[in-house]
């Protein structure tokens, strides 16, 4: 026990004097989690709170185009700004650029007349279908399409949702006109406003409820998503310090001496595991504390800890153990510090990408969806998300913890094999 304590003390002293290693393990992840959460929070708010500026050039003088603009405004996603003049694609692009707008729409000059004509035609077809005589059944030209200009920085999903919103607005205008035509054809008078509103606004509501294991309703936000994810990244980033420490010890003369002493080098490996698991737990505590106490002062959502704190501690400990086991394994097989730094950093980025830290694993297809299961970071993330987003309990994370332990044991066996193969133990 004294040997182990002396070795732990030595490792703590060596680590404490490695200022660069400490900054890589603590300062960099903290900066990362703050920056990424801020950016993602802005994206969340872009859709929910901040409105997208949309420039609308209305070349039409009819009522329907005005109704369309009102309908687009009512969607709630957009801050509508009308621009005058006969805009072309080139001038619209210039206007969007000048006004820092991500979206632009040109409503063609004959929009209202064509919507009215098309609605009358649709109403006529409907009446004819009922066996009544409608206004006309003549072949109609389609309404000229609206042109939606968008800045390519707009994500595909957001662009599709914008197009969907504008489509709904157009459909509302066309439905209203069709209804009016039908009513007028049947009753020879204008449709009462109340009836029109009742018919058009009587839509089935969608009740959105975030689901959780515990049944409580936690609204996901950028903090709940990012803090656990980038904490895992920070844990695995100990490879830069720990892997380097193993290689340095191997390459420096101290390892030659250690091999001639009456103590097995496994004692050294055990000590490193204990010290660096402590480091990962400390990293987690620091990053979570920032999420809880600093984020609200930065205008970011507060991190809400899961109700099952024991499960949080267990998951944190096992994630840390896995990260440390990976770092030692790479350190044992690497021949130089450069190999650890290069391979370590790149492999962590790849494992985090495959593991769903950068792109949700549910969005992955085929090979990568299966490959996610091989990334320890995937299981870490799933376990944390079960706790943070679904308010799960210890029993709920077992499906994630067991594969994580298996992967960790694989790293441990590989380390032993590597040490044995290199005659280090």
């Amino acid at each position, binding site marked *: 026990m004294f040997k182990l304590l*002396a070795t732990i003390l*030595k490792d703590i002293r060596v680590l404490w004097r490695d200022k660069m290693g400490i900054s890589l393990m603590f300062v960099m992840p903290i900066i990362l989690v703050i920056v990424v959460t801020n950016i993602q929070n802005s994206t969340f708010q872009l859709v929910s709170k901040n409105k997208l500026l949309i420039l609308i050039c209305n070349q039409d003088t009819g009522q329907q185009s005005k109704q369309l603009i009102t309908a687009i405004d009512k969607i709630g996603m957009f801050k509508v700004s009308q621009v005058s003049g006969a805009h072309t694609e080139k001038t619209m692009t210039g206007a969007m650029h000048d006004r820092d707008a991500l979206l632009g729409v040109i409503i063609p000059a004959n929009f209202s007349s064509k919507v009215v004509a098309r609605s009358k035609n649709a109403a006529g077809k409907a009446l004819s279908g009922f066996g009544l005589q409608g206004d006309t059944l003549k072949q109609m030209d389609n309404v000229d399409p609206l042109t939606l200009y968008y800045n390519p920085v707009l994500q595909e999903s957001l662009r599709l949702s914008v197009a969907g919103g504008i489509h709904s607005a157009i459909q509302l205008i066309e439905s209203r006109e069709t209804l009016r035509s039908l009513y007028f054809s049947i009753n020879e008078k204008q449709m009462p406003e109340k009836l029109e509103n009742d018919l058009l606004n009587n839509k089935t509501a969608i009740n959105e409820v975030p689901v959780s294991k515990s049944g409580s309703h936690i609204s996901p936000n950028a903090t709940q998503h990012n803090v656990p994810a980038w904490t895992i990244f920070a844990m695995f980033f100990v490879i830069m310090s720990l892997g380097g420490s193993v290689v340095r010890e191997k390459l*420096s003369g101290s390892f030659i001496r250690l091999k*001639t002493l009456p103590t097995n080098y496994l004692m050294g490996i055990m000590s490193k595991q204990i010290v660096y698991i402590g480091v990962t737990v400390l990293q987690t505590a620091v990053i979570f504390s920032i999420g809880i106490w600093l984020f609200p002062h930065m205008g970011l959502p507060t991190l809400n800890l899961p109700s099952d704190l024991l499960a949080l501690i267990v998951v944190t400990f096992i994630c840390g153990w896995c990260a440390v086991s990976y770092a030692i394994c790479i350190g044992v097989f690497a021949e130089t510090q450069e190999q650890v730094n290069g391979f370590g950093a790149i492999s962590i980025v790849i494992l985090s990408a495959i593991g769903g830290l950068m792109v949700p694993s549910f969005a992955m297809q085929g090979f990568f969806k299966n490959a996610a299961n091989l990334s320890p970071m995937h299981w870490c993330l799933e376990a944390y998300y079960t706790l943070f987003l679904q308010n799960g309990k210890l029993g709920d994370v077992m499906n994630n913890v067991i594969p994580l332990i298996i992967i960790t044991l694989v790293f441990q066996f590989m380390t032993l094999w590597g040490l044995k193969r290199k005659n280090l133990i």
Partner: protein
Amino acid sequence: MAITDVLAVNIENLGFHYSGNEGATFSKLNLKVKKGERFGVFGPNGAGKTTLLSLMTGLLSANEGNIHLLGLDVSKKNKAVNKLFGFVPQDFSFYQELSPVENLEFFGAWFGLDKPTIRKKTDELLQVLGLEDVRNKQVQKFSGGMKRRVNLAIGVMGNPEILFLDEPTVGVDVQTRHAIINYLMELNKNGTTLVYTSHQLSEAEGLCEHIALIDDGKIIAQDNLDKLLKDYHQDSLEHLFLNLTGKDYRN
């Protein structure tokens, strides 16, 4: 200390080659060092001195033959063997980020010493080797001579019965060399067997009673130093060395 008939090191029919047949190769090499001796192993660059020390300390494994330290087989990788000897490698073998005290505390624990013994031994070694004033300073800021003394202190921390020294005075000033040699003589008086390699032949002449000259993986002479000088009609170890190994460059 009086030399006894007990063998501190007994190498029999040693065969060794590096993978790919690079570096020194030994074949049927025999060497005996008695307990209490100050034994020097000398040879030109690439002769196999460091390889031989690595085999004796278990850092390398022999392909043939066996090596016993005080009767215990080195090849068994028994940690009891490691308790018998201390090793002072040619390279600095400690944590540069730590102070002499912190290094000695750690290596003392790995030698299997208890806390009070480590404290006592640390104070004693730092005093004897003139490191008392810098006991808590990081070793990486030390001069080469100071680092050599730290290297030696760690090697003797475990009170070894046999001390292997691979060029322990390389690159140090005259004062440090004197201090190290005097300390080694003191250790030997107290019973420690010394197995030593160096290119400082004048220094070795004063330290070693018995020597082995090796060249190209073979022992070309092995006996009491005075006897060898007499047998080969040489007046110094350096002349004996040149006489037996030639004056050509060794690459």
